[in-house]
């Protein structure tokens, strides 16, 4: 077939090689605006598993690439003047220029026609072809000339791509405090003479430091001075380097007729996970294989191949884009983590994108994890510490024997939460909700070695419903229901009873009911007390702008907290279960949630149990594995308060990762409970 490729980056060149190899009869032409030796950027990193794919796809290219590779296995993290090293990561890197030269040479050997210094501004200028490949990168003109359902949004902070003549022996992250905020580098070696140094910071820091107004020279001087210790007397080198924002590109479809998107023109992944080139080259492998599978004899076969390619690649790309979003978000907020001890800071950084867990780290670098676990346990002089989830937590005078929390049966957990206990008959969720702590077998749980936490609630507008086994928020028949109160007279879901907006007298009564339930719980021997300010229940409905029109939304919840703090022994921890994000338009956001958490901590809450959503029935929750973890990380770091988090954590490895990284202090494990 006749193939026209726009853009001689890794995607376009590698695809041409693979197509030509599979069938030398293909006529392939590549159009590139730059000269053969000119390119942006410095070195690019590859991970081990990519190399396997490249070896299988074209061994000749693989050999030449790996011959020039810089290889190393360590990540260094410079933070608070200390450098921590984590090993076992298996990186290789290559100069972008060198990679392109190898690919170009291989193209020529195979008979691909290369046109350099040919800028194509109008796709109509391109020759007729059976297949037209848009491999022209982030700002693809070919993509813009048609409707691929493209969405583009800036991701992460501002960055600039420098080189240096210092040869590092590891991937290095370095964090520098300035009066305007934290600025960090991502650097790595890529040949015997040079390393890449990407400098990055949030946009407000960038502006405050005046980087937006600096010349190329001034910017280099600024960065050289800031990272002088890392550069050890070496220079930063510019390659027309400029401060940029990274655009996250997504497309609803990857092909249109005989035009197909490849590499960065189809999707980008933030540079902090170093995977763009890898994804671009894997795209090429997948697309070339699709033609082997479907043939290219007619338009239908070509269409089938393009569809096959998209189906195969999309889920992989989605996973990388999710990891990239988590990573970019981490670097944007990293200033809040400067309170973490160095090794925990490092674990948080290494596990930021969800691709590496505590167990993965332990496999790569047992020594690093041994020391991280010892630090976590607060016993640096011992030989081994238990894994994080088995490390006791001291909270006030209470010592929780391990970090697992379950609701209901103990089953080895360190802390058992009761099912919600209503503070009054009309505060019940369902007819089965217990009222008062009276009947709870505290002693039995204590015998199992766990502590017990009483969870006090008032259902508010989510009350008088059927038990959850029949569905949630399904109201009881009128003759079995009781009247509801809330912060406003807005019903929760379809068919829900319209609650009454609670008046002053009623609020005082409810506050007193909470306080006396707290006192009862203390007498009954509960170790911790949890107040339910979450998920649309009565106290939560005061906190959300969606359900409380009043200005001072904290007033009543703080009153209840104060009354309970008074009634509950001072040395026993009091936990606030809090919705930190409504996940609904015009609702409370995580910024509000952090502010609430701070206020409750100041008012005597020992810990925040992080929840989100369910404020209103029709909302936009974001479900996935560990869906509350990032929110907990933010509350813990930004409000400086210990947190308890659930959110579909199903393995001890996930729990260990959350704990070791300092994203929470206790974890609720999701294990299916029999109906």
């Amino acid at each position, binding site marked *: 077939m006749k193939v026209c490729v726009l853009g001689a980056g890794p995607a376009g060149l590698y695809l041409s090689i693979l197509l030509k190899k599979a069938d030398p009869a293909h006529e392939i032409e590549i159009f590139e605006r730059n000269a053969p030796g000119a390119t942006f950027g410095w070195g690019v990193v590859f991970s081990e598993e990519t190399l396997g794919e490249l070896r299988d796809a074209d061994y000749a290219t693989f050999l030449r690439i790996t011959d020039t590779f810089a290889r190393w296995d360590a990540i260094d993290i410079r933070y608070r003047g200390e450098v921590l090293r984590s090993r076992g990561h298996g990186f290789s890197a290559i100069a972008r220029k060198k990679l392109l030269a190898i690919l170009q040479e291989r193209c020529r050997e195979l008979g691909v026609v290369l046109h350099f210094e040919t800028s194509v501004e109008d796709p109509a200028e391109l020759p007729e072809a059976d297949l037209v490949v848009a491999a022209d990168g982030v700002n693809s003109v070919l993509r813009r000339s048609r409707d691929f359902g493209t969405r583009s949004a800036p991701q992460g902070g501002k960055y600039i791509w420098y080189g240096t003549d210092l040869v590092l022996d590891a991937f290095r992250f370095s964090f520098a405090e300035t009066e305007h905020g934290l600025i960090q580098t991502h650097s790595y070696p890529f040949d015997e003479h040079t390393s890449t140094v990407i400098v990055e910071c949030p946009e407000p820091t960038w502006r405050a430091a005046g980087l937006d107004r600096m010349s190329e020279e001034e910017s280099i001087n600024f960065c050289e001075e800031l990272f002088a210790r890392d550069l050890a007397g070496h220079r930063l080198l510019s390659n027309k380097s400029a401060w940029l924002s990274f655009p996250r590109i997504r497309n*609803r*479809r990857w*092909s*249109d007729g005989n035009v197909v998107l490849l590499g960065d023109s189809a999707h980008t992944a933030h540079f902090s996970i170093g995977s763009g080139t890898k994804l671009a080259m894997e795209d090429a492998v997948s697309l070339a294989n699709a033609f082997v599978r479907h043939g290219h004899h007619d338009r239908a076969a070509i*269409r*089938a191949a393009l*569809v*096959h390619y*998209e*189906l195969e690649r999309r*889920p992989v790309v989605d996973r990388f884009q999710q990891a990239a979003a988590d990573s970019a978000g981490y670097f944007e907020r990293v200033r809040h983590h400067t309170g973490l001890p160095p090794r925990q800071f490092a674990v948080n950084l290494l596990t930021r994108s969800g691709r590496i867990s505590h167990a993965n780290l332990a496999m790569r670098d047992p020594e690093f994890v041994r020391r991280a676990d010892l630090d976590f346990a607060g016993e640096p002089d011992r030989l081994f510490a238990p894994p994080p989830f088995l490390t006791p937590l001291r909270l006030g005078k209470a010592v929780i024997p391990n970090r697992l929390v379950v609701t209901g049966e103990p089953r080895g957990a360190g802390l058992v939460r009761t099912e919600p206990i209503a503070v009054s008959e009309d505060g019940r969720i369902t007819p089965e909700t217990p009222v008062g702590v009276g009947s709870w077998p505290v002693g039995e749980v204590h015998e199992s070695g766990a502590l017990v936490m009483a969870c006090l609630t008032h259902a508010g507008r989510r009350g008088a419903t*059927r038990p*959850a*086994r*029949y*569905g*949630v*928020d*399904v*109201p009881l*028949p009128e003759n079995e229901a009781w009247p509801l109160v809330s912060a406003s007279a807005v019903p929760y*879901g*379809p*068919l829900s009873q319209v609650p009454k907006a609670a008046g002053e007298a009623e609020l005082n009564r409810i506050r007193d009911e909470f306080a006396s339930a707290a006192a009862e719980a203390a007498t009954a021997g509960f170790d911790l007390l949890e107040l339910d300010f979450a998920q649309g229940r009565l106290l939560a409905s005061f906190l959300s702008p969606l359900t409380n029109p009043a200005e001072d939304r904290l007033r009543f919840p703080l009153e209840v907290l104060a009354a309970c703090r008074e009634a509950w022994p001072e040395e026993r921890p009091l936990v606030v279960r809090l919705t930190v994000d409504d*996940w609904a338009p015009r609702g409370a956001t995580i910024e509000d949630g952090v502010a609430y958490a701070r206020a409750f901590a100041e008012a005597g809450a020992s810990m925040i149990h992080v929840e989100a*959503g*369910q404020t209103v*029935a*029709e*909302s*936009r*929750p*974001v*479900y*996935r*594995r560990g*869906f509350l973890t990032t929110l907990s990380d933010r509350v813990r770091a930004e409000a400086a308060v210990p947190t308890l988090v*659930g*959110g*579909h954590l199903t393995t001890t490895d996930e729990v260990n990762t959350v704990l070791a990284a300092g994203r929470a202090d206790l974890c609720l494990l*999701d294990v*299916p*409970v*029999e*109906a």
Partner: protein
Amino acid sequence: MKVGIGLPNTTPDATGRLLAEWARRADDGPFSTVAVLDRLVYDSVEPFTALAAAAAVTERVRLATNIAIGPLRSGAMLAKQADSVARLSGGRFTLGLGVGARRDDYTAAEADHRTRGERLSAQLAHLRAENTDIELLVGGSSGAAFARMARYADGFAHGGGPPRAFASAATRARAAWHDLGRPGTPKLWGQGYFALGDPDRGSAYLRDYYAFTGPFAETIAAANLTSARAIKDFVRGYAAEGCDELILFPTVSDLDEVDRLAEVLA
């Protein structure tokens, strides 16, 4: 994992005789369920009507809408239709509901498209409050759809795609289930399309049926399972991801397809 088969109620020119004979053969075969799809503006048979015909000639298989577009009907009408199929089949009915993806169906039904999610929630709440013991499934891929599923239904109906896509939806369904405080785990249903006798005709049908999605129709057509090997891989993949029940929908309405599929699954 159980495997069910679709009735050809949305492939063109389906007759009563064809649907009845199809259902009868399915009842004799290795299938757990006979399921239907819902499409208003297309040459197709209304899903509850098709299941009523199937109910009359079957004794064993479950009958399912996978899914029906709830908001095209009034709440009371939907409940009546569901109740009717449940009654005609002696309680062998599973009601799968979703908001669908086609705006033109809403226009034709004179139903408001903007409030479709809330209306589906209201319908589900009614069905639950009515105390019927019809098994409920909800489909959809937004966070709101997962929450709705976990709030009211007994399980989740996935809209199709490779096993990997099902797996990530299943994780979200389980996460939502726990988040809403439901005991146990949600039932998980999957689906796929197949054509064993005349693959080209099957894929052409899919291209036409999904023409409203633009170029995406091509993607769906390309995923049509057209060989015994493809079907076996698909079934194995879904079973490995924890699917409880997988429905294979025909894209060609030749009766032999039931026997061919039965043979592949045997």
